């Protein structure tokens, strides 16, 4: 592989520097580096970040290839500046055996757009009753370290406790989708003023918060680490903040859409806003932004959830829950966190690369931009502003809530171990 010189990029938003990639490695970072023998990428004014890492992606393969495949999903990831994604286990068949996780992992490797790290199911068939073979998935070629029944909550307190304990043997972590099932039967949207008016079944904040409270206490009791998926309420933030102050080993994620959108959007009954956990209130959005800024929430994770058109082109109750997010995540984070002054680009690098790689133990990802590190890099034109056009998505699905919305920032280049996967905004 040849040399690439990225000239004059603001590394993590700092002073302009040159970054020389040699083969798969960052060879040198400094001023006025020698361009001889290197392909030059002029990056003046742009921000260079470590390749983004998404701890929460639905790639849908195997089983729902009509909405996404490992290929289309990793192309979407590269397009959004990601070099590693963690693929959720709710496929058909469920990723609850070594065989399925190895298949997904191999597909990611073959396509080469982005590293795919499968997440294993906590329980067989996501049914919450019997532990899946967590050890076998860890020992497989896929080397699974993150386990989640995402889409379903590990509701049974004993199963959750055992899972938390069991994965300690190999440094794993359980990522909980916190949703008390009885409190959310028939739930269609956030329970509050808007649901009362619209006559849609409510998804109360307490259904999320009560499970998080239980799980941080369980994690404390058994001395395990626990990760909370897609935090969506101000109350959840308070509980995680309290748990961290007690020294409990908890990490938490927030999605881009929960940083930007509120349940007021549901007034259109447009299912593009239907997502689980649901869009909450303005007050929740503010609390989530502040928590991401102060580190109470560790990371941004997309919960990229592709759905075919027909599953959204219908009445609200019949529609599927979820939004695509890989190709708009960084723009939404810039809009909500950077342009508002809550987070600088070094902070974005932490929340979208360093910290998720650390939580998921993604080797070679989330590393500093410095000599000797793997060349997983993302170059962002932060001055750009443009309308979101789903027709241009690499994802197979178009269920974005941002269609037509103007957002800042555009990923122009992505390098996966020195190999460009995205050049001037075009996939290679």
């Amino acid at each position: 592989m040849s040399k690439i010189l990225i000239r004059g990029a603001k590394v993590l938003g700092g002073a302009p520097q040159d970054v020389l990639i040699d083969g798969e490695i960052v060879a040198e970072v400094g001023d006025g580096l020698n361009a001889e023998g290197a392909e030059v990428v002029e990056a003046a004014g742009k921000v260079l970040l470590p390749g983004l890492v998404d701890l929460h992606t639905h790639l849908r393969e195997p089983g729902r290839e009509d909405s996404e495949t490992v290929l289309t999903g990793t192309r979407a990831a590269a397009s959004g500046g990601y070099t590693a994604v963690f693929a959720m286990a709710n496929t058909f068949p469920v990723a609850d055996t070594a065989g399925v996780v190895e298949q997904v992992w191999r597909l990611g490797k073959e396509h080469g757009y982005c590293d795919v790290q499968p997440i294993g199911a906590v329980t067989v068939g996501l049914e919450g009753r019997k532990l899946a073979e967590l050890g076998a998935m860890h020992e497989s070629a896929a080397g699974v370290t993150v386990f989640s029944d995402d889409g379903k909550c590990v509701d049974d307190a004993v199963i959750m406790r055992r899972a938390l304990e069991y994965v300690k043997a190999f440094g794993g972590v359980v990522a909980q989708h916190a949703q008390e099932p009885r409190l959310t039967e028939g739930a269609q949207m956030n329970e509050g003023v808007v649901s009362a008016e619209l006559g849609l079944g409510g998804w109360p904040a307490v259904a999320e918060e009560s499970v998080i409270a239980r799980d941080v206490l369980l994690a404390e009791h058994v001395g395990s680490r626990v990760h909370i998926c897609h935090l969506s309420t101000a109350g959840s933030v308070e509980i995680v903040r309290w748990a961290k102050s007690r020294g409990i080993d908890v990490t938490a994620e927030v999605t881009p859409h929960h940083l930007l959108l509120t349940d007021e959007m549901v007034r259109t009954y447009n299912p593009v806003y239907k997502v689980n956990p649901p869009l909450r209130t303005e007050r929740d959005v503010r609390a989530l932004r502040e928590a991401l800024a102060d580190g109470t929430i560790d990371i941004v994770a997309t919960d990229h959830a592709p759905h075919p058109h027909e599953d959204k082109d219908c009445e609200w109750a019949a529609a599927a829950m979820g939004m695509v997010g890989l190709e708009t995540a960084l723009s939404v984070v810039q809009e909500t966190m950077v342009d508002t002054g809550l987070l600088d680009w070094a902070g974005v690098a932490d929340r979208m690369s360093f910290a998720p790689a650390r939580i998921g133990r993604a080797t070679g990802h989330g590393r500093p931009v410095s000599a000797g590190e793997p060349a997983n890099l993302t170059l962002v034109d932060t001055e750009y502003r443009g309308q979101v056009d789903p027709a241009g998505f690499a994802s197979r699905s178009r269920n974005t809530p941002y269609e037509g919305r103007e957002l800042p920032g555009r990923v122009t280049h992505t390098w996966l171990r020195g190999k460009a996967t995205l050049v001037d905004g075009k996939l290679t």
Partner: protein
Amino acid sequence: MQRHLISAADLSRDDAVLILDTAEEMARVADRPIKKLPTLRGRTVVNLFFEDSTRTRISFEAAEKRLSADVINFTAKGSSVSKGESLKDTAQTLEAMGVDAVVIRHGASGAPYRLANSGWIDAAVINAGDGTHQHPTQALLDAFTMRRRLTGRDAGLGQDLSGRRVTIVGDVLHSRVARSNVDLLHTLGADVTLVAPPTLLPVGVGSWPCEVSYDLDATLPKSDAVMMLRVQRERMNAAFFPTEREYSRRYGLDGDRMARMPEHAIVMHPGPMVRGMEITAEVADSPRCTVVEQVANGVSIRMAVLYLLLGGNEPAVTHARTTEEK
């Protein structure tokens, strides 16, 4: 007037009064030996019912036929919908057959809104009840009934319901009737109080333009109209209240309670009533109870809505001889 009728909240005071006044004109047609107007001759209206509701469908059908519209009844059972066809495809299929208006009843809140706003079809959409969201023609016929009884048939023309005190009792949480009535009665200037056990009130009800009380007995003497909502017995199994008997004791309307209402006050019910649950037979059959009038008024209101949405500028009722159309 808007092109569709989706929510009672979409109506301005003047829109609502116009509908009520038009309905009074329509009601006169019912007194004629031939209860038919040519207003919608040549127009096609489909009654698209995804939920069983014989009363509402028959009421719309009667209204459509009295306006001389061609009527198509479509019920989901036994149709392509039960074979998995989407709302969008069903609607587009019907429109391809040249439908001018769609009257839709659907179990999913927001389905009529989607039908009207998704670019799927061009026809006018009338909401005949969607999930636990809205049932605007019910609210209109209730307002019409109140205005007639409390203000008078002729004296009421042009009037709203300013200062009238309306109490709505029962399962507000699951009730599209309650939501529509709160919106419309507020627009018409009435003061609304909701009475229910706290379990049957939605979280967020505090932002509605009405009062909320848990005490029926305290509210009755201050009511000009008391509207009882149907309470399904099955709610008991989901712990909304302990037993049917306890519900009736605390929130049911019986003769003793009715006696606490002011003399002029009326008892309303959208039907179907569960006698012995929210209302006793004594109350249901009393002259103060307007249930049967509400049904008759429903046809007039639906005629008025169809006429105003579809009829254009021609007068609804011509008083001269027979109508010659150009």
